[in-house]
């Protein structure tokens, strides 16, 4: 099985019965294999609809969706779905099954041997940061964050090349949410899968996505690009408003001081210090706070790496 799949939306249109406006209007989107693609936009933008078209929970009217070149209509829906990981808000775990049984759902449908299922469950629990003993617990005994980890493990169980995530962190508190966002990003680097991730939260989209597709009301694609490009060059007023007037700062938040050219060390010692793992945005914030026009960037060992002048941030934004 390939570890990641390419997904193509080819002029896909979806209309719901009894509603005049299309939910999705000729959506064309090419998602290269291994890409973390975030669908973002206000409600009514059709992002969840677009996601559910892929595993055929919702049928589409026109156009086609292809996974690695094959139309999703070629397979029976049930078979198609078993090959696609699916994570939803609040996890949707089966309350009457243990964590282990939940995770084994798809492998069981696929007829895996018991030993293989057990081994896989163990691997997945470790991967999503749960204990092996959690396999015997019931969802009601878990916290919201733990449930969502199980939801993720369950979706990854049969090692699908494609993962669909429908506002998976929508119901979590901000701290748990941020922790899981970072972990899913880390996981994505480890397991290389194509991910389609739906959110209405623009911060989440920018943080998570290799690419983000911004859908506006009526299911029209407003812009599809990397977060940096969207922030640097919003396609129109709608996108500019949607991503916010602080888009320059959001852009600076995408870069850490590790990948920014620094000035050589000067003679002044009293500069405010910032870790090289921190973002340019944080460095700028520190300069605004202290009134300094440059900061000293230090490494993990405490040694100075160089200086970042305020103008550098402006230069970065021009690039």
């Amino acid at each position, binding site marked *: 099985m390939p570890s990641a799949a390419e997904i193509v939306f080819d002029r896909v249109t979806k209309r719901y019965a009894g509603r005049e406006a299309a939910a999705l209007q000729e959506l064309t989107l090419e998602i290269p294999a291994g890409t973390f693609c975030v669908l973002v936009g206000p409600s009514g933008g059709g992002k969840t609809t677009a996601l559910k078209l892929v*595993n055929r*929970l919702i049928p589409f009217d026109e156009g086609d969706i292809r996974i690695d070149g094959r139309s999703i209509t070629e397979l029976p*829906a*049930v*078979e*198609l*779905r*078993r*090959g696609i990981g*699916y994570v*939803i*808000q*609040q*996890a*949707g*775990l*089966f*309350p*009457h*099954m243990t964590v282990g049984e939940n995770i084994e*759902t*798809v492998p069981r*449908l696929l007829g895996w041997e018991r030993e293989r299922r057990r081994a896989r469950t163990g691997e997945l629990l470790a991967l999503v940061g749960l204990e092996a003993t959690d396999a015997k617990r*019931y*969802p*009601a005994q878990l916290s919201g964050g733990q449930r969502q980890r199980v*939801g993720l493990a*369950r979706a990854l169980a049969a090692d699908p090349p494609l993962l*669909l995530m429908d506002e998976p962190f929508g119901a979590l508190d901000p701290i748990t949410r941020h922790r899981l966002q970072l972990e899913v990003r880390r996981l994505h680097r480890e397991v290389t899968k194509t991910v389609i991730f739906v959110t209405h939260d623009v911060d989440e989209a920018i943080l998570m996505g290799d690419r983000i597709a911004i859908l506006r009301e009526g299911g029209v694609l407003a812009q599809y690009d990397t977060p940096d490009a969207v922030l640097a060059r919003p396609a129109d007023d709608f996108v500019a408003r949607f991503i916010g007037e602080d888009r320059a700062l959001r852009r600076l938040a995408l870069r850490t001081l590790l990948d920014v050219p620094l000035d050589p060390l000067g003679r002044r010692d009293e500069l405010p210090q910032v870790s090289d793992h921190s973002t340019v945005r944080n460095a700028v914030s520190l300069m605004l706070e202290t009134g300094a026009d440059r900061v000293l960037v230090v490494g993990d060992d405490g040694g100075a790496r160089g200086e970042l002048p305020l103008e550098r941030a402006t230069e970065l934004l021009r690039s």
Partner: protein
Amino acid sequence: MIAAGGPEPVIPNFGHGSACVTGNHLFCWSWVREHWSDTLEPHLVQHAELTVIAVAIGFAIAFALALASHRVRALDQPIAIVAGLIYTIPSLVAFQILIAFSGLSNTTVLVPLIGYSLVILYPNIVAGLRSVPPGVLEAARGMGLERRQVLWRVELPLALPAIIAGLRIAVVSTVAIATVASLVGDRGLGYPIFLAMRLPTPFKTEIYSAGALVVALALAFDLLLVATRRALVRWT
């Protein structure tokens, strides 16, 4: 009223007639001991059998109807209305009406009992199936479970608490209503009660002992169902 046949003794199953029995005291253990095996036990067994058969058939019908209306929502209201009507028929009347059709047979006794239990069970099964959170169903479908698999692996297990709650009510009320079934002849614990009541001086010990067994039987069934629930529903 059904004739119990033959002239009645002053006190039924008089036996040796201890002072307690001849004096018709509040409760005579000696009578209970002597007539456990010829009067109380056989009627208790009959009563239990009637209840189990009636609830089992009622459950099978209610289950089929609930699955049908779960799949075709439009069926739910008509079924619920008909079921509600059945429930308003007093059991005494139901037995009398059926005697005209099926005489003093088991059918006459079972049909109303089945009817009442199915009326109790149907809404409980439907409510149980509907109580499954939409997110759980969506996850099940999204992971590639077939419709039948969703029903048997997800919806029905999750409906189990509601189904067992319905069974508890159905069993307890069937035990109670089956007492009236003795009108249709020698069936269940109602029969010794009726006989004892029809005496010129109602024989208290027989009424109380049979009555106590009705209560005990209902409690036993209820406990059995509670234990079943505990064994099957481990997730809450």
